């Protein structure tokens, strides 16, 4: 027991900060990008939709290490895009915190996109038509009618996206590495300490992750719950 307290006191909290920062940023990016893409995709004809949808969902079904490998290929400083980003814009993705965000976003984005799309497709098209005949702009219709009505679906998409982004391991470790204090997220840390046989530290991190994950889900459920009065129970 004393060991446990000792370890907790000595604990380097940087992985937690990095994980939360990564999760939040990746979720925000995925949220807007996911809504935007979902809105575009549902307007496409059936064929284009199938193709685009397949590509957008790919990161979710691929093994994260494969996604990480592809990202590494794209952003490597020996490849055109990587060279361009490095030389022209002074942006480095590989082995940086930006790499964490890129990896987490790519992996988590499909969850946001798919949930948003499913929620949008459930919406009564007449609501949108009504907005149009009432003279509301397309932007107003989207943000004031479509998104609130799709609220529960979007909320669950956001929860899942955040959870996935925060816990991302495979792609992150390949693209961003596990530099302590820089790109070492909680899940990387857990893997590392377990490799070192330090199960006690790993256990502490696991508990922390469990608490955060539960708190996030609980919080979002509370927030959306207030707006779901009009959704009938069955």
């Amino acid at each position: 027991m004393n060991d446990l307290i000792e370890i907790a006191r000595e604990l380097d909290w940087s992985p937690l900060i990095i994980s939360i920062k990564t999760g939040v940023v990746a979720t925000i990016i995925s949220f807007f990008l996911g809504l935007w893409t979902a809105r575009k995709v549902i307007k496409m004809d059936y064929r284009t939709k199938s193709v685009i949808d397949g590509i957008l969902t790919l990161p979710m079904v691929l093994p994260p290490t494969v996604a990480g490998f592809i990202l590494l290929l794209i952003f490597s400083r020996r490849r055109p895009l990587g060279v361009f980003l490095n030389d022209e814009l002074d942006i480095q993705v590989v082995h940086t915190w930006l790499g964490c965000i890129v990896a987490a976003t790519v992996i988590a984005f499909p969850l946001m996109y798919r949930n948003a799309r499913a929620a949008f497709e459930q919406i009564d098209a007449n609501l949108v038509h009504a907005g149009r005949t009432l003279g509301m702009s397309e932007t107003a219709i989207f943000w004031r009618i479509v998104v609130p009505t799709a609220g529960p679906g979007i909320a669950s998409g956001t929860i899942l996206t955040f959870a996935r982004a925060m816990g991302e391991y495979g792609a992150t470790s390949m693209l961003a590495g596990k530099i302590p204090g820089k790109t070492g997220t909680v899940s990387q840390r857990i893997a590392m300490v377990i490799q070192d046989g330090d199960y006690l530290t790993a256990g502490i991190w696991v508990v922390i992750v469990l608490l955060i994950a539960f708190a996030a889900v609980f919080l979002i459920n509370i927030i959306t719950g207030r707006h779901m009065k009009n959704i009938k129970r069955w």
Partner: protein
Amino acid sequence: MHEAANEAKITAKRLYADIHLRRGSFSLDMLLNSDAARIGILGASGSGKSMTLRSIAGIEDVDSGHIEIDGRLLYDSSQRINIRPQQRNVGYMFQNYALFPTMTVLRNVMSGLRGSRNENREKAQRMLERLGIAELEERLPGELSGGQQQRVALARILVTEPGLILLDEPFSALDGYLRDRMQLEMMGMLEDYDGQIVMVSHSRDELYRFSEELFVIKDGRVLTSGETKSVFRDPGSIEAARLTGCKNFAAVRVISDHRLEADDWGVTLQLERSIPKDTRYIGYRAHYFEPVWGERQQNCISFDLMKVDDLPFEKKYYIRAAQDSGGAADENMICWFVQDDKQKMIDRKGLPDYLRMTEENILLLR
């Protein structure tokens, strides 16, 4: 009784809609041209009624045509003009009302207004007041009854002062008694509206009450149109007559200018008016048969009773012409509906020997 809708209203407005579109195997070729204040479109489901309204509102893509309300051009394929629905200023009442589920009643009504927030709020509140639903202001649509939802939908439309109002089967989501009551109420609420209103429905009763000019449509085309009562009096074709609620039809042969023979009904009809040469059917409404006891008179059917359907205020007799020895196909069954007062006479005197068809109620159809 509300007589408002039946008094001819003067509007200097005109709706002109020439709409052509194809969706798979269905094609719509519709021409509506009317200056009536209250326009009705009567058709079965799938006949293209809603599609017509949606085309006018701009929420359905039209292949070609020309749409104009009150001199304002909304769509013209040859000039490549297609005004966005947002700019058409057409109020559309959806069958399911399409209230925004996450907004309160007040926000719903405010959603079509462009002014400042306070202005909008005041305007919306005044409209809710006018329609007698001010106390619902803070409720969500899911908490309202069907009738209340409809009023909110109407308030949301009226508050934007549209140049034309389209009502898409407005009463089909309501049942029985409420439906009739809401229609009367709605006609009252729309009394002050001085633009044209188009209502589509499959209910002849609703449209008979509501519209001054009626278009009867089938398979995306206008079968007949005209002043509502005259359309009911003379629907022209058998399909249109059926849509206006006529139940009894018989194939006829025109024998002379004033005589025709309906073999299925075993009767030769003698008419005062001259009979158009292209008359192929006659139609006769189930309520209009007159019972005759004793001597057979002119234009009388002799019949066999098949079955009786006993309703609270009406009896429905299903009969067959006596001479008809053919199979008991339901199609040859004639409906005779008798209301309470006449029924008392039948209860007293027994079933009549004949049913007489009165000249003014005989529909001559193509």
